[in-house]
């Protein structure tokens, strides 16, 4: 399990290749990447991501452990950034490996659903008009119920 909470950018290609190269006997690697999305009117100057340092690593490990008990996985990787990010920058990625793609796909989706509302990160959108905390969406909370 490789779980990193960091301010620095990461190289998606390098991380994906590295993760895949560390697997043995796995037939599938699935990755998901989250990117800072501009507002519809193109007004986003930056996104600030705050987290709870004492809890974040533990929460992510708990979510990854839960995924490993539910599906037959080779490995799980999570990278999540914090600090000030700009539109089109990568915020985070998850990677899962499994012998068969179904496990890898489902586990990646599970990880994302729980990362959204059970990992202690908070996003704030900065525009010329000021700053606004991103509100949690009911749809994200509802997404947990399917698991």
């Amino acid at each position, binding site marked *: 399990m490789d779980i990193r909470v960091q301010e620095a950018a990461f190289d998606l290609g390098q991380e994906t290749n590295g993760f895949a190269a560390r697997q043995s006997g796995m037939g599938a690697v699935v990755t998901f990447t*989250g990117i800072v999305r501009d507002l519809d009117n193109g007004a986003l100057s930056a996104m600030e991501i705050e987290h709870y340092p004492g809890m974040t690593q533990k929460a992510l490990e708990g979510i990854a452990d839960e995924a490993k008990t539910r599906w037959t996985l080779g490995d799980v990787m999570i990278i999540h950034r914090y600090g000030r990010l700009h539109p089109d920058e990568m915020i985070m990625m998850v990677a899962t490996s499994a012998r068969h793609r179904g496990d890898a796909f489902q586990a990646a989706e599970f990880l994302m659903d729980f990362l959204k509302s059970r990992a202690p990160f908070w996003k704030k959108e900065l525009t010329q008009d000021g700053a606004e*905390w*991103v509100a949690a969406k009911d749809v994200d909370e509802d997404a947990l119920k399917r698991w």
Partner: protein
Amino acid sequence: MDVLYFAWVRERVGHPKDRIDTNPATVMDLVNDLRAREPRYEAAFSDLDALRVAIDQELADFDASLTGVREVAFFPPMTGG
């Protein structure tokens, strides 16, 4: 016991951390103690439905006991990913 605040809870309270020397029995007792302090705490804790709490870095409920607890954190619903 340390009490931590994140995101807009931190902004409303005005600082990221308090050290509490009293011994509230539950999270709710702690919340009531804090609300009685100053209007900015009242502003931060006026709508508990909009708040989440963690006890010693684990998500918890407002009726949870604080016996033996070292750190309590209050924050809005999380927006990771």
